[in-house]
């Protein structure tokens, strides 16, 4: 189905199941961008590192690490240390996202100006740019 959707005028955004299974079933067929979402926890970083390994070793596409629920610089540094040299976007811990999820509404509708949503909008714009600038410089 995803293959049939391919079109120059169409952007497909897929939210994959947790883990590596779906990424591995891409079976070497590349996509434009894979965003590996991690939290700054030991478990999530371990899973994210395995996902990033699969993406890079299989050359599946441009790899972006999205560090979610980042509370402080120490969190950001912890993520960066696990993904040296990789394109990184930092999404801060944001009460507006928590509130939106509790209410069952889209964060973009509920809190378009919140810090976390702003980072995601910037990521989308960067990905869509013809020759996107590199991600945030790594510490």
């Amino acid at each position, binding site marked *: 189905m995803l293959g049939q959707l391919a079109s120059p005028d169409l952007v497909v955004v897929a939210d994959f*199941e947790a*883990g590596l299974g779906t990424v591995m079933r891409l079976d070497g067929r590349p996509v434009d961008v894979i965003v590996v979402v991690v939290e700054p926890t*030991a478990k999530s970083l371990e899973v994210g590192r395995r996902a990033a*390994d699969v993406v890079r070793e299989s050359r599946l596409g441009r790899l972006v690490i999205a560090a979610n629920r980042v509370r402080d610089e120490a969190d950001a540094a912890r993520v960066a240390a696990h993904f040296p040299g990789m394109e990184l976007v930092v999404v801060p811990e944001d009460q507006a996202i928590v509130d939106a999820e509790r209410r069952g509404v889209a964060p973009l509708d509920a809190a378009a100006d919140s810090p976390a949503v702003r980072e995601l909008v910037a990521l989308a714009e960067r990905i869509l740019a013809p020759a996107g600038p590199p991600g945030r410089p790594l510490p």
Partner: protein
Amino acid sequence: MRVAFVGKGGVGKSSLAGTFARVLARTGERVLALDSDPMPGLAFSLGVERVDHGLPDEAIQEYEEEGRRRYRLRDGLTGTGAVEQYAVRGPDGVHFLQLGKARGPRWNNTRQHFGFQRVLDDLPGAGWSIVGDLPGGTRQPFMTWGRYAETFLVVIEPTSASVLTGRRLAGLAATDEAPRVAAVANKVRAPDDVEQIARRTGLQVVGAVPFDPHLATADRLGVALLDHDPEGSTAVAVASMVDTLRSGLEPS
């Protein structure tokens, strides 16, 4: 006691399952913690140092049946024997066994997949309690990966997506083994969160765990909650849940 923790990804299943297993072990029960998620998770929450503890290849035997390749435990190895031989001993004496972990683009866990299934068919019985941690979502729970469970504990946080997943998982009660299915409210922040979860899922809530910043810190440090904050609100809530289940949970 045989319980399996299920729920939407990210709701805290592994954190609660690992803490639950250790608290249960501290009551004197012999506990086997089973992790059927191909992503590492429960090991961190238990406080087991190595995160990959799948069955080794030597435990699993390949054979042919009607021209198809099949796998079973090697001759003479029972499920109970596999637990005794290959489960690692974690903190508080918890035995820990997991499905082989995913690693690398050509990772193939067919052998471990079927080997683990054979262990589930022949788990140790009398004298053991089993605490399972299933991957997020509904796939594994409805595909019999939790068939050992007398009780499914559906971990639900007070978000719409988590409650919806919980409502779907409530359907486990109608599967062949007819297990009990109950909810655990996690990351509770508001006074009516528990009541809302019960009302919107139709499930009996047997545990309410408050939102706990110490858990986030433990997760960041990669240490088990019980080692980081042994007297904190999560540990207290899980201990209460263990008591509830040990005293005999009434069906919903």
